[in-house]
């Protein structure tokens, strides 16, 4: 075997298992939370199940769930999001990971996997979606550090096709921490408590001047400033700090350790996408409806503006009038899947 293709899913793209049993399809999980809340029953167990615990200075989670005597581990990818791609990958190979956890921690696990399962006399071809792309980029930096050369990752990986990676962050990560409506308005308070314990969300905060003042103009603060998060006690300062460190260490020049890897980006610009928030220093953050071009989560123009010219040349964009699905479901589109697989052939 000369090469092997593997999918690295995005946030929520694979199931989480509590003591080996699925915590539920997102639809079922949402429905359960909604029904429990509507019936006046406690959703505390779900909050405990989905929450993590970390300590400063340690990438690995102290606890993967706050439920006593339990452990949450990654499960198989969701077929509804990735079935069409997996059907066209030999062995339906994927790298499931705990998408709530620290990127560097997961990148270490990814490297271990790529080394241990490496195809005989061959290299990997990686297809990543969303956070999965960040995982690959962080892994390339981590591996370069370990081996002492910027081309180290190419010993393991020949191709890397990143579908809609939020390379410079996404406003949706801030929205999840502040508003918490991902699981529906009924349980937004509970979701915020859960989301505040997930390092990955902090590490996907926007890395551009996205805070606008109510009276107009840019704020001097960013989403990695402590002052920005003062109104939100469930946002943990050491995780904000960690998010900043990950960005600076691995994602300031995201492709610098991909020497020798045939990498490419695929983005879309056919959905309205948030690229800004509105807040005065120390005041609550408001999230206006997205108006920028993107895939619904990753704003394209801002991402391209941050790219180096070499990265731009390796970027493919789905046009503004296309009927491809939004970010989370991009790989349900046969055309996108075909595009990705062709890229791996080059």
């Amino acid at each position: 075997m000369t090469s092997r293709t593997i999918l690295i899913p995005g946030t929520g793209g694979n199931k989480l298992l509590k003591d080996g049993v699925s915590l539920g399809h997102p639809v079922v999980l949402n429905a359960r939370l909604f029904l429990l809340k509507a019936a006046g029953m406690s959703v505390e167990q779900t909050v405990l199940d989905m929450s993590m615990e970390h300590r400063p200075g340690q990438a690995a989670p102290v606890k993967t769930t706050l439920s006593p005597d339990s452990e949450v581990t990654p499960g198989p990818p969701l077929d509804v999001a990735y079935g069409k791609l997996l059907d066209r990958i030999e062995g339906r190979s994927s790298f499931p990971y705990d998408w709530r956890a620290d990127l560097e921690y997961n990148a270490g696990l990814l490297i271990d996997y790529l080394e241990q399962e490496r195809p005989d006399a061959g290299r990997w071809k990686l297809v990543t979606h969303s956070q999965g792309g960040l995982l690959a980029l962080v892994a390339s930096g981590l591996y370069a550090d370990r081996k002492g050369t910027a081309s180290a990752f190419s010993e393991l990986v020949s191709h890397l096709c990143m579908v809609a990676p939020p390379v410079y962050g996404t406003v949706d990560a801030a929205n999840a921490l502040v508003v918490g409506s991902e699981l529906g308005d009924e349980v937004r308070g509970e979701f915020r408590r859960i989301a505040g314990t997930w390092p990955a969300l902090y590490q996907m905060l926007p890395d551009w001047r996205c805070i606008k003042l109510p009276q107009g103009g840019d704020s001097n603060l960013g989403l990695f400033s402590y002052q920005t998060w003062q109104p939100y006690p469930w946002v943990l300062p050491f995780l904000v700090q960690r998010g900043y460190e990950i960005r600076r260490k691995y994602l300031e020049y995201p492709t610098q350790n991909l020497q020798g890897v045939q990498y490419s980006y695929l983005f879309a610009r056919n959905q309205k996408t948030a690229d800004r928030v509105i807040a005065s220093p120390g005041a609550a953050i408001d999230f206006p409806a997205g108006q920028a071009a993107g895939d619904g989560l990753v704003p394209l123009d801002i991402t391209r503006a941050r790219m180096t010219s070499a990265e731009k040349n390796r970027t493919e964009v789905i046009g503004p009038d296309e009927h491809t699905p939004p970010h989370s479901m991009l790989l349900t589109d046969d055309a996108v899947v075909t595009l990705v697989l062709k890229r791996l052939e080059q």
Partner: protein
Amino acid sequence: MKRLLLAILAATVLWPSAVLGQPEDSACDELRSHGDVSDIDLLRCRFEGLRCMRVEREGRASSPDETSLPPATWQATEESVYVTCGGLGCIDAPDSEDPSMGVCGTPSIPDDCGGAAIVGGLCGEQHLIMKKLPGIVPTRLFFTAHPIVDSGFDGAAGFNPDVAAGVLLQVGLGRSQSRELAGGGVLHYGFPNCYLHAEALWSRFRVGHDVGVGYKTGSSWVSRVALTGFGQYAGETGLEDDNATYRFGPAVQVEIYFNVILKGGWLPVGTGEGPVWFAGLTYGASLLDDFRK
């Protein structure tokens, strides 16, 4: 494109001559005369200190303990790196207050190389020009489960719940196009929105076919709709039933959130009493895995 080609041409032409040690000015000749001098030193001799151009790169977010955003960073232009500087980086000019003005020098960060990788102390990576796609012909094949009800075989009111297995094939009608983007990269457009939709299903009580045209809406909740011609051969007690009939007519399918397909049809044509209506849903068998523990 012209600039990119120029840059690559310059990199190809200038690099070998410089690296092989053929700079023309006398200072470099003198350096060369010392014998044991590296190729990079010769390159620096020729290009280092020359003026080059930088462009603004978007500023970054402030760190947690900063109260204001840091200034924007600057990035070398491709032309600077590969033409003006012959493969050296274009770094900040210490004697100029204009941040867009740089000088050729040693690359230290990718920005100094216009984003290219640093290889052996030089800006080394040539830019990739991606091949255009020959076109996209998407397909999908679903093995499906079909909970289905119909009005009965005599056309009178009544429900005949049934679960059928099936195969659904969708083939995109059309080919996408692509063009180069200003600043680099490729834009893809004209993805097919219409699909040939062909489905077969069977159960103990029926054998059915469903052929038509699907349309990808671009919306999430109603992700696809299809108009089809649906036909079924069905018997009340099974396919061997002496009173089994064949009915045919138009059907509508609506795919919800890329997942479940709701369908309904009216079958006025065929043998036996009619018309017959039916309703049901189609679900990809592999999707059921998502719900398993």
